[in-house]
């Protein structure tokens, strides 16, 4: 019995080793990403068409899981390149010396605040996503809630128990929202704002997409999340409106970086070149409203014309440096402090 178990183990090993060994001429790049699921197929298709000789093998997960995986695998990286991950994660990895320095062809043309300030660069931006409010219009009507257009509007006592946001200690989206408030209001005022908002918040969720999903299901009227999240939900028929508050929103970049230690450096560089090219930017523009390459018109709809002006000025490196202190402060003020209502 035991012997057959060992035989089976051996067989299993053999089978699983044989699978990746299928002959391929193209270089297979393992690409770690936090892109949305529906973006994977078009991105892969476009990249493989534009860069001959590569094949993209995605490993996709939420920002937190992918970042934790990358850092845990640091001693022996499995990813060749990261394409579509929060710049905060990449800066964390830069500090751990995990990124391969390389300035992709044409990267100098990117907006200065949307590319690495090192030479050669360690990462290049793709597009910006912003914190946003998912507002359920049906629930709002039932409860007679006004449509909020600024962050300050959410302090209205009528929203008591109707607001959900991600816990910044669990979710990158939560931190993005928090960093946006600090950027827009100054730190002192931001803490005051959060203390007052805390009274209206029903739940701090662990996942960054849960607030918008919950708002879409009508569990709550207001979910603080990011802009991309709502599109899929609205397409399915959720009665939600996406609101980008006019009093300043935080933003995060999706970015590209080559992993130090990749065994396919050449192919990874060619993909990094593609990731900053105009055709790639046009692709990003189908989903995002602000692109790293100036002069490319995004084709995504539903964004206000003066959208870019609502973004707060952000020095990513400085925010990343303060992240730990800010999160600790947040935890001591709000985390688990309130018993569930």
């Amino acid at each position, binding site marked *: 019995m035991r012997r057959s178990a060992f035989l089976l183990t051996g067989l*299993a090993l053999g089978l699983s080793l044989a699978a990746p060994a299928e002959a391929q001429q193209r270089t297979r790049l393992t690409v770690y990403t936090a892109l949305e699921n529906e973006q994977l197929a078009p991105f892969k298709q476009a990249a493989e068409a534009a860069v001959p000789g590569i094949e993209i093998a995605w490993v996709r997960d939420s920002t937190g899981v992918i970042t934790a995986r990358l850092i845990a695998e640091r001693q022996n990286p499995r990813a060749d390149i990261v394409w579509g991950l929060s710049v905060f994660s990449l800066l964390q990895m830069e500090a751990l010396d995990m990124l391969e320095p390389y300035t992709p062809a044409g990267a100098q043309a990117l907006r200065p605040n949307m590319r690495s300030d090192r030479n050669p660069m360690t990462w290049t931006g793709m597009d910006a996503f912003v914190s946003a409010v998912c507002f359920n219009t049906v629930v709002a009507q039932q409860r007679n809630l006004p449509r909020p257009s600024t962050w300050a509007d959410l302090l209205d006592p009528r929203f008591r128990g109707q607001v959900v946001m991600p816990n910044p200690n669990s979710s990158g989206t939560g931190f993005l929202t928090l960093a946006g408030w600090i950027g827009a209001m100054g730190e002192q005022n931001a803490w005051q704002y959060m203390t007052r908002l805390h009274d209206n918040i029903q739940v701090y969720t662990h996942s960054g997409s849960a607030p918008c999903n919950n708002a879409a299901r009508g569990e709550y009227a207001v979910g603080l999340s990011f802009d991309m999240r709502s599109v899929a939900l609205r397409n399915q028929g959720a009665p939600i409106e996406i609101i980008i508050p006019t009093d300043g929103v935080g933003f995060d970049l999706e970015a590209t970086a080559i992993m130090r230690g990749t065994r396919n450096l050449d192919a990874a560089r060619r993909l990094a070149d593609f990731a900053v090219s105009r055709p790639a930017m046009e692709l990003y523009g189908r989903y995002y409203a602000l692109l790293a390459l100036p002069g490319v018109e995004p084709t995504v709809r539903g964004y206000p014309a003066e959208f870019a002006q609502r973004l707060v000025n952000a020095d990513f490196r400085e925010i990343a440096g303060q992240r730990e202190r800010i999160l600790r402060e947040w935890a001591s003020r709000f985390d688990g402090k309130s018993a569930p209502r």
Partner: protein
Amino acid sequence: MSDAVLGERLPQPRPPRGAPAGPPVRIAASLDQRLMQAGLWLALAFLAISLALPMGMLLARAFQDAQGGFVGLANFATYVTTPSLVRSVWNSVWTAAVTTILVVPLAFAYAYALARSCIPFKGIFRAVMLVPILAPSLLPALALIYLFGNQGMLRWMLFGENIYGPWGIVAAQVFYCFPAAAIILSVALSTADARLYEAAEALKAGRFRIFLTVTLPGAVYGLVSAGVVVFTLVVTDFGIPKVIGGQFQVLATDVYKQVVGLQDFNMGAVVGMVLLLPAIAAFALQRWAEGRRAGTLTGRATPYIPRPRRARDLPLLVLCITVAALLLGIVGVAAWGSLIRFWPWNLSLTLDNYEFSRFDASGWGAFLTSIEMSLLTATIGAAIVFVVAYLLERAPQATRGARLLRGAVGFLATAPLAIPGLVLGLAFILFFNHPANPAGIIYGTLAILVLNSLVHFYTVGHLTAATAIRQLDPEFEAVGSSLKVPAWTTFGRVTVPICLPAILDIWVYLFVNAMTTVSAVIFLYGPDTKPASVAVVHMDEAGQASAAAAMACTILAATAAVKILHVAMGGAVDRLTQAWRRR
């Protein structure tokens, strides 16, 4: 292969053929004993590589800073001075205790009805009790939201209370832990010596007295095991608190926060270590229960056959129907959820949600990956788990070294229960991805998912096997060895057939858990090996709840099919191997 290894450990001089009658018997027994000893060493090596070393590497992080320098107990100091972290310990303990107090008696009554009464439809009840673990935990969580959420159909039942919070956690955990407790208890109650009951009746003991003095003592080990398992499952599970717990902090969500939110593996390791405390407590408790056990099924035992008695059977039947209806109802709501367009705004029915490639690049491929992975996990796992449990129960303990070895293997077999999947997944990355580890070739392949699931779900299988083996009198082996039958023959001809139902239970348990697991494999799957359970999480995160429910229902269909097959086969197996239990 293993025989060759074992062969080297065997004593060289064999007794000559014509040796006097006395000594050869002893030497034959000692050959068995050496074999068993060697088997235990192999088990230790296996558990060391797949559990102890990875966990050791991760837990070492608790004493390091982010750069890997040694910082002693500094991280622990930070931990105990952070009030929100310490509060989680209490939250975890009390929700787990409440869940245990609710689940164990309920599961005991249910298992008692199956084993010791004459209610009809036992096969169906036996299958239905597993329903909660047949689907990913997202399914009951979604069902609870559909039923009791703010737009829920039965929201009025909460009288204005909110499902998100500790009571939501307890409700979902009771549902989720019921099968584990019921499995262990039904094994514990399935064997009894009728002579004890006859004696008790002859002594004119009342029914209640018989229950207290015969039935309960026979099931103490099972009760303790079930309690320990439920308590630890609740403490380590993070899926339910994450979805339904709101901001109610527990230890398992703290690990998630530290690892996934903050990428602080050091603090994650500290919380992971705190989480191991229940395991150590559980181990101690189990040792204590072990000291009080006795083989309930001796070689002279006559099997206990329940006789119909309305006063007992009717209430038990009502109980079983109620429990089964609740379990099926929750799953039924989720299955309906997979067929609607968008909860709660558009409830028209559709099959589109089952076209998975619309939602996830891996489409139906993820489902096939899961099937392959689960078949391997269950088959390899059931064999290893049962053999190791047998060795633990029957290997000689004459020397101090032997007892230490047995203690070590026993601890490693119980420990996985206390390890949250998240922690185990990270530990696997650190260990198997290490550049110096030759076992690293399995990294990123299906093999590492199989190994991980096997270890992750080791304990319940182990306890089931141990409970079953424990009920066999060692006399069987003694008789075997006095007839000069080698131990492995007794094992193959007596132990395995008698325990076949338990082995099949273990196989099914491993299969369904490998089909539904998320927390560990989410760190380990590669570009071609994304399992369906992970796809469920991804689709739910993308707001495609109906598609997530559809994939979860597909998983449920596979696991339910296996379970139905198991029940059908169970009848045949029973006729073949358990006929002796009947008179």
